[in-house]
């Protein structure tokens, strides 16, 4: 990489900037080719574009709902996996439970990102987002429930006293059979 850079850096003699799309024709000394108008790119038929935009926003809304419903499938699969794993603590069930917990959490963290492509001022994303969050929360609840059934949640007295040291005794007594 270093090498490539070095060569490029020293070996550059000339360059053409293709990104130049300024509307002013006189940005360069060279005139535009005949028949080429810079303004024509932005100017479009307004009706066609509106139709296109409507279709697009419809499509986006539809997609957003689809995305919002996607965790449901996940939920079902997770449930199935959990049932498969059983209620005993071992590698498989712990892995499944933790992935069941992790997935909703990471999904919830990235709610904005998930719906980023469908962001549009015409599309109401609140509904799909709420559904998405609710479904993921459901998944999370499922994971927590699984954790509980595995006995990994400290909900019992035994979880809090298991390392409680014995109480000190005030009195002390020694003795026994005479030596």
């Amino acid at each position, binding site marked *: *990489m270093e090498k*490539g850079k070095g060569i*490029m850096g020293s070996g550059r003699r*000339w*360059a*053409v900037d293709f990104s130049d799309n300024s509307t002013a024709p006189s940005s360069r000394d*060279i005139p535009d080719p005949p028949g080429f108008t810079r303004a024509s790119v932005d100017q479009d038929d307004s009706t066609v574009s509106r139709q296109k935009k409507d279709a697009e926003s419809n499509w986006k809304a539809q997609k957003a709902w689809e995305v919002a419903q996607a965790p449901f499938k996940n939920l079902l699969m997770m449930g199935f996996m959990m049932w*498969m*794993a*059983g209620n*005993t603590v*071992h590698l*498989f069930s712990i892995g499944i439970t933790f992935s069941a917990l992790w997935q909703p959490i990471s999904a919830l963290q990235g709610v904005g990102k998930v719906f980023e492509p469908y962001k549009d001022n015409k599309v109401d994303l609140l509904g799909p987002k709420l559904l998405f969050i609710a479904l993921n929360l459901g998944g999370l609840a499922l994971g927590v429930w699984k954790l509980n059934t595995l*006995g990994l949640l*400290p*909900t*019992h*007295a*035994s*979880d*809090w*006293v*298991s*390392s*409680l*040291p*014995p*109480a*000190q*005794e*005030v*009195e*002390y*007594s*020694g*003795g*026994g*059979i*005479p*030596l």
Partner: protein
Amino acid sequence: MAIRSFFLFILFFSSSLSPVFSLYEDQVGLMDWHQQYIGKVKQAVFSSQRAGRKRVVVSTEENVIASLDLRHGEIFWRHLLGADDVIDGIDIGLGKYVITLSSGGSILRSWNLPDGQMVWESSLQGPKHSKSFLLVPTNLKFDKDNVLVVFSNGRLHAISCIDGEVLWKKDFEAESFEVQQVIQPPGSDLIYVVGFAASYQFEMYQINAKNGELLKHESASFSSGFSGEVSLVSTETVVALDSTGSILLTISFQDGKISSQQTPISNLVEESLGPAVIIPSSVSGIFAIKTDAVTVFIRVIGEGKLEVVEKTTHEIAVSDALSISEDQEAFALIQHASSEIHLTVKLAHDWDGNLLKESVKMDRQRGLVHKVFINNYIRTDRSYGFRVLIVMEDHSLLLLQQGEIVWSREDGLASIIDVTTSELPVERNGVSVAKVEHNLFEWLKGHMLKLKGTLMLASPEDMAAIQSMRLKSSEKSKMTRDHNGFRKLLIVLTRAGKLFALHTGDGRIVWSHLLRSLHKSEACQSPIGLNLYQWQVPHHHAMDENPSVLVVSRCGPSSDAPGVLSFVDTYTGKELSSLSLDHAVVQVIPLPYTDSTEQRLHLLINADKHAHLYPKTSEALSIFKREFLNIYWYSVEDQNGIIKGHALKCKCTGEVADEFCFDTRDLWSVVFPSESEKIVATVTRKLNEVVHTQAKVVADQDVMYKYISRNLLFVATVAPKGSGEIGSVTPEESWLVAYLIDTVTGRILHRVTHHGLQGPVHAVFSENWVVYHYFNLRAHRYEMSVIEIYDQSRADNKDVWKLVLGKHNLTSPISLFSRPEVITKSQSYFFTHSLKAIAVTSTAKGITSKQLLLGTIGDQVLALDKRFLDPRRTVNPTQAEKEEGIIPLTDSLPIIPQSYVTHALRVEGLRGIITVPAKLESTTLVFAHGVDLFFTQLAPSRTYDSLTEDFSYALLLITIVALVAAIFVTWRLSERKELQEKWSFYSAFASQSTFSSLFLCDN
């Protein structure tokens, strides 16, 4: 569902398999060591076999008969007779049989000399108890068969040496006859039996050795009576002392006529000596008398005339006579002089001439010479050489030859009284490095070998070298503390009053010290070592202070004899100080308090129930005063069947004011009805036991609170009738009652009666449970029971929020005077073995599960998981219980052959098992002692906190190497690919730019 059940199956398989702690063959001796001893030698007989290896047969006070290699002192073979089968005499018959007389002269056995196989055994009965004698006459033949003459239980037997058949017997039924000597003059067919009757009459029986016929019976009375033993000065003359110990009686019974002569000792020795005793010796013509200060050797000349040949104030030991030719007898004499011993060998009839005179340097820590045994050999120049076997005060056995100690055996270690442990010094810098550099080549070679071994390239010879390197690893026998706490010093007190420090790594003796305070002295005639206690265990000043132990001993066997305390530095073995107490020591109570120098406070109770505080410092006193009202003590009077509780009252009244002495008052007493109960066992928890938690989580996340108290005493009583041997009573009249008694308040927390059971009871108490072992008369089997005790008053502490926020009083200090509500759970199981000892593993934090260590009747130590003795076991445990690890109930406890801690070895005469926690939580150190010593490390739940010995380092290494290589390779590959991608991108870019430049040019 199938998958679920499959998982369950796997889980069940992995969790409920009882852990097996077997070793691989090459692991033997890595962490364990075994030492064989025989005990203090009572009698030694040299084998006169010409061919083969020279050997000596010995009998010892531990009831061992052993054949030792005379060249190195190793044991050829060894037999331990039972504890009540005391050996009275040994001899060698026909040059190939070892004859032993034991059990008060009632069992005669013959063993094959080369291999120690028993040839025959005869039981000898007789009319009454008497002294016993074993004679093996060399020339008394009976149809080509040698005859053994045995006097035992008031009966004289002639026994065939070949098959042990009794040829004839003769009773000596006279009521008061006490046999003193049995004499078989060589070259004759006569046997003389001499003894006293009614303590003033001398009796002589002459018996025909061929058929046991009584030829003559003579008696003579001596008005002054007799005292002590008689010494045989010739085949027909004995010397005895009168009852005052001041007149010597020379009694001769030549030709069946008794004639005697009296010589006052004062006639022989000018100054008065006080009462004397005869030292028995078999040297003809010479005998010795001993008073408190002086030993006098006296020669018998002619008709009962006596002559003093030597008088010495030195400690002296004399051997028996050794006949070296037809008419010559030699004997050895050992005298002490400061740091040397002088060995002289003399001929019996020539006192002034010495056959041999040697001086041998002797370690002072061995004390005095107690016994001497002499043996001769023929030198290359055809002259006689002599070697002597000596038994020292510390019970060690040494062979002296040509002025040197050829070998020595520390047989004092066969009779250990008490054991404690001590840490080793903390490692200082630069010790190990220097050692490594010292032989760098060896070190490199060792590592090369190890590498070869792990890569499985080693040849069988290399494997052997690796194995020996592992066994002799200097790492385990270093004299410094290690990280895991495996290296420690075992401080043991032996019956001889010697303190040994054994290294746990390889069992070698680091130091030994014959306690001065246990030495016989004016003030203390027969000191007995009692117990060892940890006196000072420095933690804060571990670098500059040495730990010390307290040795409690007593002058004399009675319980009111004054006590002696000595303090011994455990690093150096130096006796720091010793205290002769003016009071007796009946009990020693180590208190759970230490002073600023980390000396533990001890309370010594004397016979008058006064408590004395040690150390006697004002600081200790102030600490003690602070806790004064909370200290109690209890005494178990097992003879009277009473357990009493006491509290401290005030300073001692009367006598001299002593602010370290306290009066006590009786608080409570538990009196067991003497007609129905007799105390056979009491056991408490170990003082230093650490309990991790008070809660026990049971199935379904339920919790039970253990009743953990330091002040619980388990007492087992049996019916007085049933305290005898097993089977001596019917099941109906025998029972066993188990109690759990609080020793502060005297409250009986639990009592359970088992009918049809009998002792002996062995019990062990740990945490909140006690396990005891006894015999079931109805089932004709041994049984073990477990009692677990739980605190019911804490059971309702189940509010999670309270526990989360810490708003509970589960850890606040409690008083035993508050009323406890306990429930107990118990269960019994059959067990195959009878036991000699029982112990439980102990670990540093008490987290690791426990194992019971059972000293079986076969002198082995068996580890049994505590889970097998869980009163919550049921025949069909529920799913949750199975998950918790409860084993389905079976009627008997399994004995898994792999769980013998001692694997193939035996700890002969096993007496005690001691467990010491290592610093590593998973591991506990186990020391079993009897006649033999055995030490090992145990991990009851496997070594979960460290890699095991058989961990495959090779696999780890290979994996790491492979991973690194893979990383490197993939990195190179990715780099190359990236470069290529870049090149292709640039080339595309370059062609495009060429095109555009062309286009531009065109334009």
